[in-house]
């Protein structure tokens, strides 16, 4: 189990196996993720990288973060 919190998200590379998300430190709202997506990310938000989705969901719960639903029903 490993959780990596990155505050300066400047061309951070993730692999296809890693789970990550971005959140706004001020509002506690998750801006993107949790998702698996390889690539190089630059963002003004906080990035958290983990091995599993469960680790990120635990992080969200423990840090009182909020995921806003995008699907409209």
């Amino acid at each position: 189990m490993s959780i990596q919190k990155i505050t300066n998200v400047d061309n951070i590379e993730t692999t296809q196996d890693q789970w990550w998300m971005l959140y706004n430190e001020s509002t506690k709202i998750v801006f993107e993720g949790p998702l698996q997506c390889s690539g190089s990310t630059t963002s003004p938000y906080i990035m958290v990288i983990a091995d599993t989705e469960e680790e990120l969901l635990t992080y969200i719960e423990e840090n009182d973060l909020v995921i806003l639903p995008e699907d409209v029903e």
Partner: protein
Amino acid sequence: MILSLTSPQTIESIDLGTSTPRLSGVIDISTFANLVGLNANENDITSLGSFTSNPNLQEVRVTDNLLTALPSLTGNTNLTSVDCSRNNISQVFPDLSSNTNLRVFLCFRNQLSGNVFDISSNLNMNHFGVGNNNLTGTIPSLSANTNLKTYNVQQQTPGLTGGFPSIDNLLDIDIVNCTGNALSESLPNLSNNTKLRIFQFASNSFTGNIPDLSNNTKLQLFECYNNNLSGYAGGTITSKLSTFRGQSNILTQSAVNSILAAFVAAGHSGGLLNLGGSGNAAPTNGNSNSDKLVLEARGWTVIVTP
């Protein structure tokens, strides 16, 4: 639960509200001959009796219960709205062909099977949502449904097949969602859909180009990730489009460059542009791509193949 009243024929509306413990059992409205509205959301109702004695029925709201089937609606020609989302309804798609006044039909998160119902007879339909069911086959033509504002067939198991029908005639369409199916062929042309706000076509097998979005000036969310899209038709990006997820396609470097440039030209700040994932080409000069740097300076979150 039993409804027992001395003059049920005088009742036009029933709202069961919410209670603890939740109401359970069967709702039988057969004696409520003049009933117009039934609201029994968020209970533990297991069955609805027949609606054949309720010709005036217009609105039925029975979300978040334990229903396993819907009664036949063929005689309820005055129906305007049905919402039976989040139950355990496991039947073939109900026949709605006689419900020509229907404006809303929502049946999210059930186990409906068979084909998506052809709503070409439901010309008044505004909101049609049957996401998260077990529907199969192709999506019927939508060309007659010119009043459609939302159409949601997302996340069917094992997944809808074939192409997505033309939405050229849907001038009022606001939301289209077919994410999580097995749809193929090209994405629909969007040039007539000037009111389109949310476009979600992710996790299918679409091929060809991301369409020209120049006329979609109200577009806020565009998702086409996890497909086999290779190009971008070009055109301008509306200034309202702040979330674009196009990761995990097979976009060429030219397409990636053009999308980055289109967002730079749009001139707004603080959005999400995801062109990473597996399959997409890196932009020219990778992380040093000049358009990528401009977007990042404007507060965008940008993900690309490095």
